[in-house]
């Protein structure tokens, strides 16, 4: 039975695609973005045990095999474990089967238009997603993939075949900035941008605008705007320090990017032909 590590499921979300959607967040991400708001989703738990004794509710235990166990009934969601974890992981991850996840989706089904998978990076669970989307499709609901673009959709288009589209993050275009910001080469991301656009599966692109990073911001926005035109939505997101690891806050900024500053880039994008560019 296929299982995937699920960080959490939000039954109703109005910010992960059109309408009301159930969002499934998977654990684990190949990037290590400096500005990640939920760094505890980056890695899988290494069962080092550091968090176990610090849990004030006794919700964490080490079992006979040395694996950390999380008792959701006892957990008071104080997030002490997440703050303490030295490995950017979380002990509160559920290894779920497709049926497990479907159980929660079916419950929300009457109220939603579809399901969005996110993360972490959901495409790490490609085979799981294919089965999940096939089941969701049977309910007459749409499936969207929220992705950082690290998975080469052209090389393995199976998951696209059972989904309605991708919401793609294009975080950095300049190679040096990309290496620094996301610790990953940006080539696959940019390849995906073109491919998804070509096959009509690009639902939206998102770019975060950082305070006082004129050159980097502009390079990314110009590139994306020129490529997508009015082919899909372009969300310009203001950098927010909330949840960002402290050391990286020092580097990127301890303040939210100004609305006017972000709007400048949305305007630039629109001037370059990305008619559906707007700040969120």
């Amino acid at each position, binding site marked *: 039975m296929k299982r995937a590590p699920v960080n959490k499921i939000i039954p109703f979300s109005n910010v992960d695609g059109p309408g009301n959607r159930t969002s499934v967040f998977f654990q684990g991400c190949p990037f290590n973005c400096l500005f990640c*708001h939920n760094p505890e989703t980056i890695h899988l738990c290494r069962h080092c045990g550091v968090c176990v004794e610090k849990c004030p509710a006794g919700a964490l235990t080490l079992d006979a095999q040395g694996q950390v166990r999380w008792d959701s009934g006892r957990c008071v969601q104080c997030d002490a474990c997440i703050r303490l974890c030295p490995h950017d992981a979380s002990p509160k991850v559920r290894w779920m089967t497709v049926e497990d996840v479907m159980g929660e989706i079916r419950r929300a089904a009457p109220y939603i238009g579809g399901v969005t998978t996110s993360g972490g990076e959901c495409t790490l669970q490609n085979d799981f997603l294919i089965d999940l989307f096939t089941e969701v499709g049977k309910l007459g609901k749409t499936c969207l993939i929220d992705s*950082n673009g690290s998975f080469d959709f052209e090389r393995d288009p199976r998951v696209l075949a059972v989904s309605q589209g991708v919401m793609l993050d294009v975080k950095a275009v300049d190679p040096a900035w990309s290496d620094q910001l996301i610790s990953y080469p940006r080539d696959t991301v940019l390849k995906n941008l073109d491919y998804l656009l070509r096959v009509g599966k690009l639902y939206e692109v998102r770019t975060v605008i950082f305070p006082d990073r004129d050159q980097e911001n502009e390079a990314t926005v110009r590139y994306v705007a020129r490529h997508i035109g009015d082919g899909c939505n372009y969300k310009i997101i203001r950098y927010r320090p909330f949840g960002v690891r402290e050391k990286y806050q020092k580097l990127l900024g301890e303040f939210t990017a100004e609305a006017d500053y972000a709007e400048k880039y949305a305007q630039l994008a629109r001037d370059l032909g990305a008619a559906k560019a707007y700040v969120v």
Partner: protein
Amino acid sequence: MSDALHIIQDPTLTYRQELVGLARLGESTDDTLRYSDAYYAAKKKGALCDLNEGVMPFRPRYICPDYELLFQKGCRFLELDPPTDLLEAVNVLEIFYCHVPSITTYPVYLGDLDKLLEPFVVKEDRDYAKKVLRLFLRNIDRVQTDSFVHADIGPEDTVTGRLLLELTEEMQLAVPNLTLRYDPERTSDDFALACVRCMLKTAKPSFANHRMFVGEWGERYAIASCYNGLSIGGGGYTLPRMRLYECSLDAKSPEDFLERELPRYIDLQLEYMDKRVKFIVEESSFFKTNFLVTEGFVKRENFIGMFGVVGLAECCNHLLGIEDKKKGFGMNEAATQLGVRIMDAIEKRVSEHVAPYCDAFDHHYRLHAQVGIDTDGMDDSPGTRIPIGVEPTMLEQLEVNEKFHPYFPTGTGDIFKFEETYLKTPDAILSIIKGSLANGLRYFSGYLENNDVVRVTGYLVKKSEIEKLRQKKQSLNQVTLYGMGAQDGGHALDRRVQHHEESAC
């Protein structure tokens, strides 16, 4: 100080509010209507409550005139001819409203305004029609100064419906309360979305489950007052309520409650209702001489008695010994199941009782989830609602509601408070409403955090008007006072906000 002097000297009461207060006082001096000692004991305990209906019912509590008939035939008593254009139509209504009695002294049902006015509106230039409707709404807000004044629109999209939405948004008035009768097959998504947008900004309209109401009442039903389902050309005689938490205090166990205490209190409330209904029909002059009756705008057989309940959540929690509300009714399957058993028992016993003068409804009263009054504090949550402050996720809250809403043809509802991002995604809310109504939700209300007009427990108030009362100034709307009480005692404005959660990456 005498009660009368107290009213007369209260700086926060307007002249008309004083008048109503003094009339109530006068009414309370009579003791013609007597009930059993057991009834008085239950009332003293707080287990039964008459909602200050007054000891001498001289009119039915809620009256829903047949305005279509008014437009067809005119009104002899008020010397009004059938209207021939929009201006006349609006004028006829404004006059007529002033002569429709109710418990609040204001008309609780203004009609299906879109259907009534559409034939006149479409004959006019849109801007002119809008101007007339603007003055009409202003008249209602300043003359019928009570948030229980209620108008209905839908299910179909109409020019008038659109204009009323536009004006509601532009004018930001607390009066009238407004309901969209929503039917997925008859209400277009476009019109429903316009209603959602308006609801976020002004706390109205609410969405009524049209199919459910039609199934119970037929096409000619009204949503009046807070969210009360009633017959057009009829109304509600009386609405007392069982305060279920207080009813449960002497029970030794859930079984003891279900077998002994609950039936006892149900019967006492039925005794009270029977006596009042008979009195209104047989003794008071309303059904004999009021022009509404003699000219056929209401018919006695279309009236019903409304059997109210409040505090199911607290009742279940108490019976199961649950002290932490966060782990109680709404979040706890056993408590919710007990709630279902209690409601089944109430529904059964009430439906077995042969009620006087409820001819059009098989001679039975119908249940009502009463919305609470300001003095309830935190002891009894409205109807079958989950207590404020411990609401679970919206999904879970809807699921609980869907279990309980079908019990209440004469009205129930729940309110959801949304945060700003929903303004950009009204389709997300419509999708939730559609799903929930299909699953048995009866009535959905929503509003945006940070609005001035907000929905308290069923009615609308302006937060700025509550502020006036706090500063010992008068508020034209007589309901503002209840709003202040509900905010202070019941924390009614502190309900959970539907947030979008920060996505993970």
